[in-house]
């Protein structure tokens, strides 16, 4: 029941993210996407895709023909005509190229993004709108900011041989792009192509997994050993109190401070890696979550009923044996909870990995490469795509897809925590 309620409330809260994020997985693809998938990932039926391509090429033919005719008209016209239309036409040509990709038989661009048109129908329609309507600003009222005015581009070319192209584009856009629903679950497992213009987010997902699991590899043993020491051996002295206060305040340190510390200590001082690496990032994240694990595990160990300890001791168990065989298993639900909560925390943290592990573009790493190589990671890439990518609007769906993936990842982790804790505490009847 509690799980259900939590899920529902989270879904309500996260609804906008969910709706936008789903766009990365389910969308209307164009023929360009099918072609891209075939050529770059070898997916799809070659015959079918090529048939689609031929069909759309046929539909696009009138557009290209009109363009050729206009170019012809320009070359024959006087210089005044040329001056009037040259830059206007260049813009149209560029926009159409962006919409439909390079002209068949034309020169292929070096960048992948230049070789294909719009792969998503929503982006294609936005581009179409840009072709049909020209955006200008009306500054006639000087007391206010310029007002955006849309006026048909067709008006510019009225009377020329290019004029009909706009009507054709509007009418036949579906024939030219052949949209269809695409369920792109491989978004999760595909490498990104051309800085996230195409493809998926596997390097980011993998990097996030490496970082958070790596953090756990360091944080769990240290955390549990420290918790055992504090709960069972330390006693109540001034030193113990000092240690406890330190741990608590460590939990309150801003995460960016951990990031800088990680850079200064693990990379610059200890030289674990020459530059950013998953190793350094994991260690930094481990420091970040260590206080959580220590405090929660200590509480869990302390709340193990005294009867268990007494029984084990009375049977002749030594203290460490009692701790390992009776106390730790009984404290397991609490310890597990802290571990999985911190796993979620480590997966979602951005600041500690900026200086220690994260890069904006990278390949998926093999396990042994994590010792020396940096990796892209979801939280950092979300930030990076939103602020520093050259075409933020073009790839919004990737950004939201990453956010959704991260949120689902963390939710799943927390859900697992709840389920494991339930199962274990059921076994312990507590």
């Amino acid at each position: 029941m509690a799980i259900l309620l939590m899920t529902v409330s989270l879904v309500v809260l996260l609804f906008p993210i969910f709706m936008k994020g789903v766009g990365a997985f389910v969308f209307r693809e164009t023929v360009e996407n099918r072609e891209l998938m075939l050529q770059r990932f070898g997916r799809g039926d070659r015959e079918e895709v090529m048939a689609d391509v031929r069909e759309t090429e046929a539909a696009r033919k009138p557009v290209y023909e009109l363009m050729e005719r206009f170019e012809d008209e320009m070359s024959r016209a006087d210089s005044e005509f040329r001056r009037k239309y040259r830059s206007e036409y260049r813009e149209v040509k560029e926009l159409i190229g962006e919409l439909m990709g390079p002209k068949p038989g034309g020169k292929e661009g070096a960048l992948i993004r230049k070789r294909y048109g719009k792969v998503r129908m929503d982006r294609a329609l936005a581009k179409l709108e840009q072709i049909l309507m020209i955006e200008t600003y009306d500054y006639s009222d000087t007391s206010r900011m310029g007002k955006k005015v849309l006026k048909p581009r067709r008006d510019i070319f009225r009377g020329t041989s290019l004029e009909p192209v706009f009507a054709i584009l509007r009418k036949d856009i579906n024939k030219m792009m052949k949209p269809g629903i695409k369920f792109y679950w491989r978004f999760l497992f595909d490498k990104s192509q051309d800085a996230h213009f195409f493809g998926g987010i596997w390097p980011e997902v993998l990097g996030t997994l490496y970082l958070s699991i790596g953090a756990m590899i360091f944080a769990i043993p240290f955390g549990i050993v420290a918790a055992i020491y504090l709960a069972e051996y330390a006693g109540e002295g001034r030193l113990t109190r000092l240690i406890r206060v330190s741990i608590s305040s460590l939990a309150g340190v801003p995460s960016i401070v951990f990031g800088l510390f990680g850079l200064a200590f693990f990379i610059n001082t200890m030289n674990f890696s020459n530059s950013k690496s998953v190793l350094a990032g994991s260690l930094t994240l481990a420091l970040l979550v260590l206080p959580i694990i220590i405090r929660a595990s200590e509480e869990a160990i302390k709340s193990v009923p005294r009867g268990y300890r007494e029984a084990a001791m009375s049977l002749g168990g030594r203290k460490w044996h009692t701790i390992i065989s009776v106390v730790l298993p009984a404290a397991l639900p609490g310890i597990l909870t802290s571990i999985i909560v911190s796993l979620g925390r480590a997966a979602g943290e951005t600041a500690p990995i900026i200086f220690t592990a994260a890069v904006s573009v990278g390949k998926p790493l093999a396990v042994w490469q994590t010792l020396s190589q940096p990796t892209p990671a979801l939280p950092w890439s979300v930030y990076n795509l939103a602020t520093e990518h050259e075409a933020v609007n073009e790839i919004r769906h990737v950004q939201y897809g990453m956010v959704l993936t991260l949120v689902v990842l963390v939710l799943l982790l927390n859900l697992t925590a709840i389920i494991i804790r339930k199962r274990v505490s059921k076994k312990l009847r507590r």
Partner: protein
Amino acid sequence: MNEEESNGNKLINTEDFSVFYGRNEAVCGVTMGIRAGMVTAIIGPSGCGKSTFLRSINRMNDLIPGCRVEGKLMIDDQDINIPKVDVVTLRKNVGMVFQKPNPFPKSVFDNVAYGPRIHGVKSRGKLSDIVRNSLQQAALWDEVKDRLDHNALDLSGGQQQRLCIARAIAIKPSILLMDEPASALDPTSTGKIEDLIDDLRGDYTIVIVTHNMQQAARVSDYTAFLYEGELIEYGETGKMFTNPEKKTTEDYITGRFG
């Protein structure tokens, strides 16, 4: 067991034995001898130090910070409080059953096998034999033989307590300490525990702390009455409950205080 042994052989002897919690003296200068193979009950009002005394026989008080002892407590003429005594060996010889049933959250089998495993029994066959024998001795075998792999916490309170007894005798101690073993149980379960104590008589030297004087009268051969940390009277149960020597004892067992 012959007559002489059962009467004369005192397995646990204390001489002027005291236990302190910080400055507070919980047990004051107790001198007594507990006979081997007999059931000895320790009675007395709450806070009289009877549990503390019991727990010092297997040094469970070591766990309590600020607790120290004075005087001598000897088992088999060996003072158990000197440094060279290993508590693990001591506790292997002195089993304990607690007031609240406290089986581990493990299977029935693993509960009973816990002690033997600590003391180095590894083979599954041997462990099975020990578990079976212990459960049979604890009169629990027939009830749990089909669910040895079930969680011990699934058993009823009374079964749990008998399981704890089985767990304690699985390491074959010679002394069994029981700290109000039936006080958390219903009358039927209490009856079963008392029958069990009766069965174990002779094989183990049992020291039982109880609040319940009828219980002490029913199960024990000897009774010690502790009051405010001091041993007031100690003798055969029959005599003590019919004809106590001290006035305080009489007042207590007739229910005038406590």
